[in-house]
């Protein structure tokens, strides 16, 4: 997408002033970006928040290209959406998708106070920018004369060469730090399989494997609970992740979705199975 947009957008971005095409692009992208960013604040599930951040970052890459910074636009896509956000998704999957946010305030009223501070910060920042008055861009035509990546490289390897080396040291330190932090040293003795089995028997919990889900009449889907010998749905037969996400279906829902006459053998229950029935 970026490669295709690159040529068009650089044509759009006339040097020195913003063209109509760029204005249209900005007003199309800016609301999308703000809405996606708000998704970060309000999304219940962390994966949705991550995807909305991806939307913001890709849009930012397009805006960079429109602002005569094609090198940064490409780097934005590769580094941010390609590497950083994928790292976020990896950790989200590692930590568990069900690690949902608690909406209980540790400090009373902290959430409202934080929202108020946020709105205040936004008002101050936007106010300052708007008071700065009309800004006339000089444009990058002269700086980008030999091409944008070449221009960036010239500045990077002349004026900022010391910073570049420091940043290289920082990157190596970060990589080593991440390895050290995620390295797990065994603090306790390894528990043998025998001890595990003994502990399981001693705990008087469930010794057999969990029942398989959905082995019921017409549906063998993963999200339908199996029925036990007493006719009650067995909650623990549905995989834990589906239960945590609230994606399991009850037996009644499956029957409601069945068109009449489909399948042979069993008949739908005459009354709803709720799990409240008396055990026969």
């Amino acid at each position, binding site marked *: 997408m970026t490669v295709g947009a690159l040529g068009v957008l650089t044509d759009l971005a006339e040097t020195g002033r*913003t063209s109509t095409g*760029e204005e249209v692009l*900005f007003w199309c992208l*800016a609301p999308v970006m*703000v809405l996606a*960013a708000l998704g*970060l*604040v309000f999304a219940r599930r*962390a994966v949705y*928040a991550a995807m909305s*951040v991806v939307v*913001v*970052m890709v849009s930012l890459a397009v*805006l960079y290209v429109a*602002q005569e*910074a094609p*090198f*940064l636009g490409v*780097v*934005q896509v590769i580094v*941010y959406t390609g590497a*950083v956000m994928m790292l*976020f998704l990896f*950790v989200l999957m*590692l930590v568990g998708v069900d*690690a*949902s*946010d*608690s*909406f209980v305030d540790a400090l009373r009223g902290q*959430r409202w106070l*934080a*929202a108020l501070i*946020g709105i205040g*910060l*936004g008002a101050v920042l*936007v106010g300052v*920018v*708007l008071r*700065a008055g009309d*800004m*006339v*861009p*000089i*444009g990058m035509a002269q*700086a980008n004369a030999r091409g944008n990546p070449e221009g*960036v490289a010239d*500045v*990077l390897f002349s*004026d*900022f060469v010391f910073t570049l080396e420091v*940043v290289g040291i*920082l990157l190596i*330190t*970060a990589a080593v*730090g*991440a390895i050290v*932090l*995620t390295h*797990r040293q065994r603090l306790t003795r390894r528990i043998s399989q025998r001890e595990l089995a003994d502990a399981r028997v001693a705990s008087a919990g469930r010794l057999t494997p969990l029942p398989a889900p959905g082995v019921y009449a017409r549906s063998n889907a993963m999200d339908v609970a199996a029925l036990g010998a007493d006719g009650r749905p067995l909650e623990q037969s549905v995989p834990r992740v589906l239960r945590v996400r609230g994606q399991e279906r009850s037996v009644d829902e499956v029957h409601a979705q069945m068109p009449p006459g489909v399948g042979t053998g069993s008949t739908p229950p005459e009354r709803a199975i709720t799990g409240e029935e008396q055990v026969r």
Partner: protein
Amino acid sequence: MNPANYVVLAAILFTIGATTVLVRRNAIIVFMGIELMLNAANLAFVTFARMHGDLSGQVVAFFVMVVAAAEVVVGLAIIVAIFRTRRSASVDDVNLLRS
């Protein structure tokens, strides 16, 4: 169009990122809020580079990206390490130092 619009957009994104850091409890989402703030700063840098016709702004934005990548690597490693010991990714649960 006044290019100040880009700076206004950057300010709005920065604000939303800061609000995320203050409001959310999940450490990973808090981190994404920090990333959003860094990105907003980058947008402002690129806009200023264009206003002044100087590539230094773009180079600084480039450095911000590199530092952000390093920060994410270490931060996520810390989150994983905490999750391993505490089984939680909530910033409220990390109160070991509370007497």
